[in-house]
């Protein structure tokens, strides 16, 4: 290739001397064919010559070809193709852990009646497997108290999903370790209103509710504070980093000096 190009240059170009050539500091040529001129321009950039192999090898002697039997090749193909782009490194970690369990080789894993059963022993087909997953999911969702209802607003139907907040709160209370749950702002009793602001329970509103409850129901009364979050709109692209005049709302906001 290099020799071909050199021969081509010999035949097609002649060196030009003059002011332009002197100014540019590089040799200038006149070409007999424009195609050769184009090739010469790009050859001069040396892009192909500077190119390197795509993958930077992680070790000097890569252990290639270790997926050398049918099942491992199938696994490799699955890892590289699933979801269109294959699995991420984190997902590959999880898959390895899962396969460790599936191969019964994970240290300390429990043994039960199905320890030596295969997938086919339980599911005859992919659809049976899918149905089993969907059934478990449906039952779990119902057990968690999720419900759906169709709301009709101005002639349009909307399906909404919800579960009882008080049941959610009960679950949080019962599942949280006793050491991680504070019934009163002061630990074992309501704390007085002060300047401490370490947790949301230190807020004035919480303590006000607490003192009211204690007055009405005695020392065994306590307040369960709840924060609610919902957000139908998207974040602004600024990420909340610049101020603006709310002229659209008819309001003018004036930044304060620091």
């Amino acid at each position, binding site marked *: 290739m290099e020799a071909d190009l050199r021969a081509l240059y010999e035949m097609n170009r002649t060196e030009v001397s003059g002011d332009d050539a002197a100014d540019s500091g590089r040799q200038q040529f006149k070409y007999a064919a424009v195609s050769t001129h184009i090739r010469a321009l790009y050859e001069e950039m040396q892009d192909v010559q500077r190119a390197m192999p795509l993958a930077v090898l992680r070790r000097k002697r890569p252990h290639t070809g270790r997926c050398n039997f049918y099942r491992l090749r199938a696994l490799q193909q699955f890892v590289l193709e699933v979801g269109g782009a294959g699995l991420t490194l984190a997902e590959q970690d999880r898959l390895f852990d899962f396969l460790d369990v599936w191969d019964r080789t994970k240290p300390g894993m429990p043994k039960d009646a199905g320890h030596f059963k295969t997938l086919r022993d339980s599911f005859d087909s992919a659809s049976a497997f899918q149905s089993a997953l969907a059934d*478990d*999911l449906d*039952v779990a*969702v119902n*057990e*968690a108290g999720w419900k759906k209802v169709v*709301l009709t*607003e*101005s002639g*349009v139907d*909307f399906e*909404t*999903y*919800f*579960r*009882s*907040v*008080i049941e959610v*709160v009960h679950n*949080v*209370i019962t599942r949280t370790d006793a050491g*991680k*749950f*504070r*019934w009163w702002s002061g630990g074992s009793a309501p704390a007085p209103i002060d300047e401490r*602001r*370490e*947790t*949301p329970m230190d*807020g004035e*509103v919480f303590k006000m*509710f607490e003192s009211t*409850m204690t007055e009405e*129901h005695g020392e*065994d009364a*306590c307040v*369960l*504070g709840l*924060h*609610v*979050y*919902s*957000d*139908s*709109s998207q974040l*602004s692209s*600024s*990420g*909340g980093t*610049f*101020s603006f005049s*709310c002229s659209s709302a*008819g*309001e*003018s*906001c*004036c*930044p*304060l000096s*620091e």
Partner: protein
Amino acid sequence: MLVPFDVCFASLSAQLYPVRVRVVNVIGQAQWVTAAYVPIVRRLKERSADARARLRRSGVLQRTLYAAFREYIAFSHLGFAFKLGTRTLKVCPRTLLYLCDRPEERAVFCQIGGQCEYPCSVCTVRVGVSGAATAVNSQERKAIDVLEDQVEAMELVRSSRRRSRRVTLEEGASNSSYAPVFGATAGLGTDPHLLFHMVGFGILHVRLVRCIIVGRGAPGVSKGTNCYQFDTMKNFLGLQFSPSCSICRSLR
């Protein structure tokens, strides 16, 4: 069986948005639990599409919130018993904070969004004077009065009667003809009537940061939560607010 519920609804995420709750008595990392998924209401091609969409949005949000918070509201008034060792505690749940952005705030309070006569969710400043010095003297919205008007307007809508009265009630404080669900919760709709003080904005939602936060530092305030509760923010931070800015006023 442990199921990640967000996975169940992942395919619907383009049409739904979640309502999450957190119990603040739990120490350490905040644990948000999803309690409901609200459908996203889009504007349709119809007459007065914007107004109808706003009404639908408010209605769907309030009805979903009520479905989720129905028992919670009852227990907020009555309390429930909880056995703690030898003691039986009387536990009363209270809503301390509703985190959302400004359009959502208007929907939660059942107020008209966008351009309206009373753009402030907390006080009754008129849009025409909201930037003026006189705005400082505007009165705060009184939860009990506003709720009475909204309940009356909602009754009129449901019975399709006296449209003119309903319109008057709506225009009185730029409210929509829906009653906010949280008005039924103890402490918000009852004494000490903190309904209009419960909303806080996530700090990422605040575009007027320079206007609101003067930079005195806030050690400890954001611990345990990523947001600032603005109704008590002044106490927390010793903030300065611009007297001529209605948004600042609404945050005081």
